């Protein structure tokens, strides 16, 4: 096979991509769970996280090159800044672009269009305010090979992504499974009308769901920006891929989103080895089409309420 020679290398870089996809995909899945809607403006939540972390880290780090515990601190700071930025934008998005429509029981197409409009608005405004060149997030750590596993080189960056992502994913899984907020989310996902009769404040649950999705998306924006820099158009492609991942795993299903993200990341990377890198998107979408044909509900099936 074309990828046997550096199979593990590609799996490692694929996993790193996959964790990012998973974080973004969770934003789609959570919102889909409670609203049965694709949040098309999630890409801009991701972007805002990138910008927020850029500004915070630049202010906090100056031109220093931190080591050891300071590095960890700055990574955590970046994740928090990204998460806060993402959460804020997601919250506003729900308030402005979704809630007035929801109050009116607008058709679902209206939500999509409103979201597309918000997305155009946000990213073009970001380009206007912060410039249209990519900005480098000051790196909290020095990237380089750390160790090898099955002959595959593992970089510091991959480790940072993996640890941050796993911590956040586990937290979210627990939040949804155990806490009152999680119960609310699951109740709304299963049957919103009944939930509201049982005393669940639907508006608040939806708002909080957006915020949780925003934290993850914004943090992903930071992790992504660490290697790629932040720029106003950064959201589009990763968000599209993450959405694919969410559908792949079964949209509305939290663990499905994680599985879909990791799978997509690995398959894309292996695919590049077999053909030109420019066919990568074709591979990703080809897989999506196949999965939807064979199993329209995605690998793990759909329901947020049932799965977690």
């Amino acid at each position, binding site marked *: 096979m074309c990828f046997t020679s550096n199979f593990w290398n590609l799996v490692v870089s694929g996993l790193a991509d996959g964790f990012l996809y998973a974080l973004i995909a969770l934003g789609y899945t959570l919102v889909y769970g409670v609203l*049965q809607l694709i949040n098309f403006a999630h890409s801009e939540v991701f972007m805002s996280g990138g910008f927020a972390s850029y500004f915070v880290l630049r202010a906090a780090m100056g031109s220093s090159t931190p080591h050891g515990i300071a590095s960890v601190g700055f990574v955590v700071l970046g994740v928090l800044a990204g998460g806060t930025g993402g959460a804020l934008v997601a919250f506003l998005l729900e308030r402005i672009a979704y809630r007035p*429509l929801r109050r009116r029981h607008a058709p679902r*197409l209206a*939500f999509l269009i409103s979201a597309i*409009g918000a997305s155009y608005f946000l990213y073009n405004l970001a*380009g206007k305010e912060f410039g249209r060149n990519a900005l480098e997030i000051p790196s909290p750590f020095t990237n380089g090979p750390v160790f090898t596993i099955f002959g595959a080189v593992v970089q510091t960056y991959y480790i940072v992504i993996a640890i941050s992502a796993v911590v956040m994913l586990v937290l979210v899984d627990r939040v949804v499974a155990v806490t009152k907020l999680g119960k609310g989310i699951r109740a709304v996902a299963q049957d919103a009308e009944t939930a509201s009769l049982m005393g669940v404040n639907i508006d608040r649950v939806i708002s909080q769901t957006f915020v949780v999705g925003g934290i993850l998306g914004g943090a992903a924006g930071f992790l992504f920006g660490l290697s790629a820099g932040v720029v106003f158009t950064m959201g589009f492609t990763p968000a599209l891929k993450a959405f694919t991942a969410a559908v792949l795993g079964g949209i509305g299903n939290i663990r499905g989103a994680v599985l879909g993200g990791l799978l997509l990341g690995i398959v894309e990377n292996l695919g590049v080895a077999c053909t030109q890198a420019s*066919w990568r998107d074709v591979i990703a*979408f080809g897989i999506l089409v196949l999965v*939807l044909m064979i199993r329209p509900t995605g690998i793990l099936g759909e329901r947020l309420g049932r799965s977690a």
Partner: protein
Amino acid sequence: MSATLPATPPGTQPTAGGQSVANDRKTQFLRLWHNDEARRLFACLVGGVVLALMTGPEGDGISMTSGLSGALLHPRIFAFLGIGAVVWALMTLRRRYGASIRRLNDRVTGAPRRLLPDRRVRAVVLLAILAVAIVYPIYLNSFWQSVLVEQIGVYVLLAIGLNVVVGYAGLLDLGYIAFFAIGAYSDAYWTGALPVHPIFHLNPFWAIPFAIAAAMLAGVLLGTPALRLRGDYLAILTLGFGEIIQIVANNLTGVTGGAQGVINIPHFSIHLFGINYAWGIASLPYYYLLLGFVVIALVAFSFLEHSRVGRAWSAIREDEVAAEASGVSVLKYKVMAFAIGASTSGFAGMIVASQISFVEPGDFTVQLSILILVLVIFGGMGSLAGAVVGAAVLQWLPQYLRVHPLFGFQQQDLYIYLGAILVLMMIFRPVGLIPSKRRKREIGLAEHGVGTADAMSGSSDPVV
């Protein structure tokens, strides 16, 4: 203010009093927050700030705050806050006195309930519009003629095609521009402009049926499996399809000419029954060509809308399950709508290819699909007049603003405004500029919890 303070006697128990004042401040704030008027005022002021940002100076890309401070820490901010306050005042006035003004207005003007009440009046008005559309462009300068063809005419055609898919059948197609690309490349193929040569060369006119057939075939091939799926999945599948077509056109250099594009696609020409006419680079002849096709398409689609097929689409849109149960072949009608949209898009693609005699893959972006969707929605989903007017207005406006930069409008900010328009439309006027009667009723019904008004979900569960 003081009236809302509780009557705690001053001087007694200072610490407890302090606490209760803090608590009261909090409740006061909450009360203010729950006061609808105050919240609306707040929203309007925030809107003013956003407007100040949108119209403010560019950031320099180095400091985070250069753009923000230029827009907000400047006396101009008061003007924008003022605008916000005025909007709020107007809205409040309208809410308070709107009903009586409307009554008064109706009494005074006897406003017609319908735009064009009578069939005959309707026909006369439509003919008049057609006459204006035929004669008027002659008096425009060549720039506006070019705008009329390349920016308005083509998009009107695209919008009425997409209107069949989105408006009639209620399907969300985000890869609409892929069929445009297929049409354009078919044209290039049959006229011999591509690196791969056709079996026989055709004049672009004779290539029209082939291009339409190719786009329609692609629509059916993609649609048949994809339309079995639920609406959200259709959106993502078509999105993916659009990307794939672009990538394929870009990558298969030996077939499509690759990223460099295809040059020297011939213009239209007629050599028939002694008539010899060749279209060149001037825009006006293409305008009449387009106008002819747009009119044909409008008549055909309007006929379809009011036929059995149109009623089937309507049934699917309102309640897919019920439609299926009462014997409507849902898949067949969905594929039909999808294929009709695809072929219209393909046709538009081939007109553009012959006119500018150049095609490159970089033009077929997802953003363009979304733009056309915006045109349809802005005009009014399901309404032919809406699609035409929506496309005409939204495509004309940026060109107008390019020539006449009002209020320091900068071209690079265009999409900020378009995005804002979309959101505002969905909040305040989701039925579009010229709503279709049927759709308006459906959206009204959906808002009362009956039906879905689109084919986005398999079930008829209303969204929360």
